[in-house]
């Protein structure tokens, strides 16, 4: 395996970068859509049930099928892959944003309103800072899930570390399979670790134990 890595070093780096960029694009898009959606549905129980229900259904679709569904719309390549990954990343992000904001102590909001803070000020100065660790928890779950699922994106020619695994499988090249599998696992761990640091930096000292 060491031989394989040393001999194919540039290719492995390229595949890893593809992998990371696929997952990240999807997660960032999911954050951009998911976090605001989560905030919007906080005060609308009915809308919240519909959105969470829909996201739950998406989550149950097998990933292979999801990539297949995305193909007729986006063709093959990175576009359908990012789209499918984005859908998977949505649920944890929406759900955690919703729960994070919902769990903010209502008396804090009451005090903030009573003192004369506007809704926007309450959201950005109070609700988000207080919910940030829960929201970031959702982002971490989404990122780890996406890095795992991205390995399947090779089937619709989106590249990534899945290429190594599937090519290895078809050519009985065990070092190649292991390298692909191991690297995607290590990537997931590194990303989770880094996001953990971000989460810590964003969380006020007053909220830590």
């Amino acid at each position, binding site marked *: 395996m060491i031989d394989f890595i040393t001999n194919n070093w540039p290719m492995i780096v390229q595949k890893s970068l593809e992998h990371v960029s696929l997952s990240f694009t999807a997660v960032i898009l999911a954050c951009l859509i998911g976090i605001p959606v989560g905030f919007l549905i906080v005060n609308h129980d009915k809308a919240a049930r519909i959105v969470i229900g829909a996201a739950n259904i998406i989550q149950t679709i097998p990933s292979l099928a999801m990539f297949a569904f995305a193909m007729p719309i986006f063709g093959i390549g990175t576009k359908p892959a990012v789209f499918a990954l984005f859908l998977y990343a949505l649920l944890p992000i929406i759900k955690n944003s919703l729960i994070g904001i919902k769990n903010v*102590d209502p*008396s*804090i*909001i*009451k*005090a*903030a*309103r*009573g*003192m*004369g*803070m*506007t809704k926007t*000020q309450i959201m950005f*100065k*109070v609700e988000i*800072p*207080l919910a940030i660790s829960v929201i970031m928890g959702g982002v971490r779950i989404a990122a780890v899930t996406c890095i795992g699922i991205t390995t399947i994106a090779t089937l619709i020619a989106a590249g990534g570390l899945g290429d190594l695994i599937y090519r290895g499988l078809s050519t009985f090249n065990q070092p190649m399979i292991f390298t692909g599998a191991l690297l995607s696992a290590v990537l997931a761990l590194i990303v989770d670790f880094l996001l953990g640091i971000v989460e810590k930096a964003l*969380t*006020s*000292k*007053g*909220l830590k134990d």
Partner: protein
Amino acid sequence: MIQLQNIVKTYDGTTKIIDNLDLTIEDGEFMVLVGESGCGKTTTMQMINRLVDPTSGTITIDGEDITKMDKIQLRRRIGYVIQQIGLFPHWTIEQNVVAVLSLTSKDTEKNLQVARDLLDKVDLDPDIYASRYPKELSGGQLQRVGVARALANDPDIILMDEPFSALDPITREQLQDEIVRIHDELGKTIIFVTHDIDEAIKVGDRIAVMQEGKIIQCDSAEEILKNPINDFVLNFVGKNRLWKTPDMLSAQDVMVKNFPTIMASRSTAQAIERMANKETLMLCVIENLKKEKKKLVGLVGANRLAGLNDHKTKMTDIMKKDFISVTPETSLTDVINLRNEKGVKYIPVVDEEGLYHGIITNASILNVLSQIMPGTEDY
């Protein structure tokens, strides 16, 4: 001045949470709204900073209709303290104190100085607490911060919604003293909601007792204790309450009103006759003014009449003119102190115009105290 006029609040159109409520709160007044839970006291208070809008009726502050004001600006002019405190856990204590001030004034240095001064005012050492987070403070300390925060914008009005109810009794007492001190010092108008009548009596200038969305009685603590308007108020304040606060009793509550009197122009013979009749050794000497008003001019004791059983000596000749008297409003404690100090047994009650109201005797003091003392039996 805050004026609530004909306020009605209903959520379903039939049940009136607030029912035609009128209330005027003077500048600098400490007004307490007290009542059982669900009586509408918190709703009434929250209408003043428009957290709740009335269904009908008008609320004005210094003559200006608050519905015409910007909600946010209005709230920033009014301090707000709630039972759950509601500090921002992700901000330090000093940031919390100037939470609203920092939205409008970007001068951080100045804001932090304001925060430190206010912490000082609520008896928290800024050097120790300013840069701590709320989780590091006790409940009592947190509510002190809550009070400091309400003062940060230097508002004229402060609303307090059961601010001390969640605290332990000792801390609660301290904070009650503190808020009274702050009120005396800064002269803010305070509207204070509580379900605890003891607290209301302790802190309030005036107390509005509420029931089912109406103000049943709105008076000074003394007046509510002494003259509850109906059985509800009587039961709410508790029948035996006067005993707890003898300070509340004044000379007019203790005095005997129908003590035997005699006109100044009468003779000693008539005085002896009258004493025998009324079985007393003391008479109040009075002069009649018009319209049944009586002026007290002196006191005559049996000792002064000894050997003077005639018709020539008039009361004006022998009565004691330099008697000690108190006004009807003098507190019982002061009366008792005066008795001890001067060694007198009879103290007449005379108002500023010299008009006679009654007289305080040993028996009258005992009588009043035994009436209000709980659990006494008449044998």
